[in-house]
């Protein structure tokens, strides 16, 4: 579905990058005035995400310990000035494992959400636009996957693929393809009834042009919101898989895996090994949820919650 604009030159709207940026800035500054609380929710989410993203980019600025260094300190000591979040059973610094572990979870969650969006959106667009038997069959498949507990599916995929960063990404991505498919298909179905789409057809626009220039730009606003919420969900799925012990090679710093390790020492009162990694998972997921909620208020004012 490569959108080539051969045939009559048809413009639904001007979509130059500068135009989009200017529009967004206008919308955001208007939003900052209009929805005070929602605006701060968005900002808070963005700050949390920015902080964790900078951990993945410059981990050495946050800690001078290496995550796999077993001589970082004494074994299983509670938080102290030297080790902000204590040390684990192997004498590794918990904070350094959190800093370096951010890469794994954030990378997997973003890559997985992107992959499912890149598969789900085109499928949903084409399926909803073309209709017919193919659309019915594809919808049935997607609805079936959607209604089934995603984690179970991810477990099955992760188990079959074996440990590995790419494999866990695939396992998480599979779960969310139907989310995008259903969203985009539903939107496409309603947008293709609009008068301007009919007009485009009437003046002789080709089907790929209609899809790319008339329908797609109208679908994308909702997708942005769902994408952010989806990353939050993918974060929890990734953490769940690695907590269960599926998906990642042993020893790799990862919040979910560190939690399952800490679980073994919980009965002897070692609270710091489980408190901090879990707190980070929650914060990261919360960051993306808040960003998504804030965006949803601003990009889709009609969907506004009272």
């Amino acid at each position, binding site marked *: 579905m490569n959108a080539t604009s051969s045939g009559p030159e048809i413009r639904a709207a001007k979509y130059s990058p500068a135009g989009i940026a200017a529009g967004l800035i206008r919308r955001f500054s208007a939003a900052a005035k209009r929805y005070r609380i929602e605006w701060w929710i968005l900002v808070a989410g963005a700050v949390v995400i920015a902080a964790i993203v900078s951990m993945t980019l410059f981990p050495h600025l946050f800690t001078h310990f290496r995550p796999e260094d077993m001589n970082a300190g004494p074994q299983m000591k509670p938080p102290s000035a030297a080790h902000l979040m204590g040390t684990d059973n192997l004498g590794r610094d918990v904070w350094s494992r959190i800093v370096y572990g951010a890469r794994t979870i954030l990378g997997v969650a973003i890559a997985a959400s992107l992959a499912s969006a890149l598969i789900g959106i085109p499928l949903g667009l084409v399926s909803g636009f073309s209709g017919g038997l193919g659309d019915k069959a594809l919808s049935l498949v997607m609805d*079936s996957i959607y209604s089934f507990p995603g984690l179970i599916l991810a477990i*099955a995929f992760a188990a079959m693929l074996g440990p590995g960063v790419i494999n866990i990404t695939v396992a998480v991505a599979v779960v969310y393809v139907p989310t995008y498919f259903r969203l985009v298909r539903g939107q496409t179905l309603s947008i293709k009834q609009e008068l301007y789409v009919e007009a485009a057809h009437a003046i002789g626009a080709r089907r790929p042009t209609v899809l790319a220039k008339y329908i797609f730009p109208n679908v994308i606003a909702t997708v942005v919101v769902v994408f952010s919420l989806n990353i939050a969900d993918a974060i929890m799925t990734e953490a769940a898989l690695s907590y*269960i012990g599926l998906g990642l090679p042993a020893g790799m710093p990862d919040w979910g895996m560190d939690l399952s390790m800490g679980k073994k020492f919980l009965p002897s009162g070692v609270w710091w090994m489980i408190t901090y990694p*879990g707190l980070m998972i929650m914060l990261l997921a919360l960051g993306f949820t808040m960003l998504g909620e804030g965006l949803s208020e601003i990009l889709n004012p009609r969907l506004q919650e009272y």
Partner: protein
Amino acid sequence: MRRILNYFLMRVLLTIPMLFVLLTLVFVVLRVMPGDPVSAMLGGHAPEYVIQQKKAELGLNKPIFEQYIDYLGQLAHGDLGNSMIFVERVSHPISQRLPATIELTLFGLLVTLGIGIPLGVRASRKRRTAQDFGIRFYANIVYCIPVFWMGLILQMVFGVFLPLFPIAGRVGARIISSDFDRTGFYVLDTLMKGNFTALGDVLMHLVLPAFTLGITLSGVFVRLTRANMLDVLKSDYVLASRARGVPERKVVYKHALKNALIPIVTMMGLQFSALLAGAILTETTFSWPGMGRLLLERIYLRDYPTVQGVIIVYALFVSLVSLIVDIVYAIIDPRVQL
């Protein structure tokens, strides 16, 4: 009554293609993807002829499509097949573990609704006040807490630091479960036997897992109840009953909530799969001998027929619940198009 019967039949027929799709997907995932159950089972060093022999025995040397047809035929007879690792039918461990999972999810759901609905109603009545924002904040936070972390935190606080509740298993070591184990639903079993010591112990073991599951899911219900209540509270009949001087409590809980509950019932069906996913993680955290543990144990052993069987039972369970929810919906809301 006829209306509901027809609806019921339609819904059952619609469930079949969904199950079929899931079944096919699971089959393909387990058979086509890398990883060979026989070599996994016999260890890496088994001679080639032994592997081939074992494969022939299990029917794994046939073409995939033939295996698939065989498997469907088997399922059509209600047979989930035999385990590849143990000498047992797949249905055997499932029938032992399923009640544990159902018991956990039911109590989890109870906690979810018990927290979610009252908080949602409260938030809608105090709209845009500190209470409302506080409750919405709770809903968002709780939604982002991973189930297993919630479990660990509850274990830490109420099991280790304040040793109030047990943190693992369904019954304590001093209680012998075979004394009352009949249906597998321990709460029911102990009640039927009149064994109240055991009942108390079983309930104590349920507290933390049920709250783990219940609290994490309650956020969704808070938001849903709040949004629906706000809609309903704006309606004319609420205004009318207020004008007639009906006490506010009665207006809210009797007139408004009753109508706001209808979409919540539908949502319960959709959230059920989240509940089951959460149950797997809760089972892992609390060593709860349910379906989720079974699934993971057998995945590590590469016992494919059992893994398939467990996933199919999960799918059946989800469809059954969504069927029940739809029927309840049709009964309580006569406007449903049938």
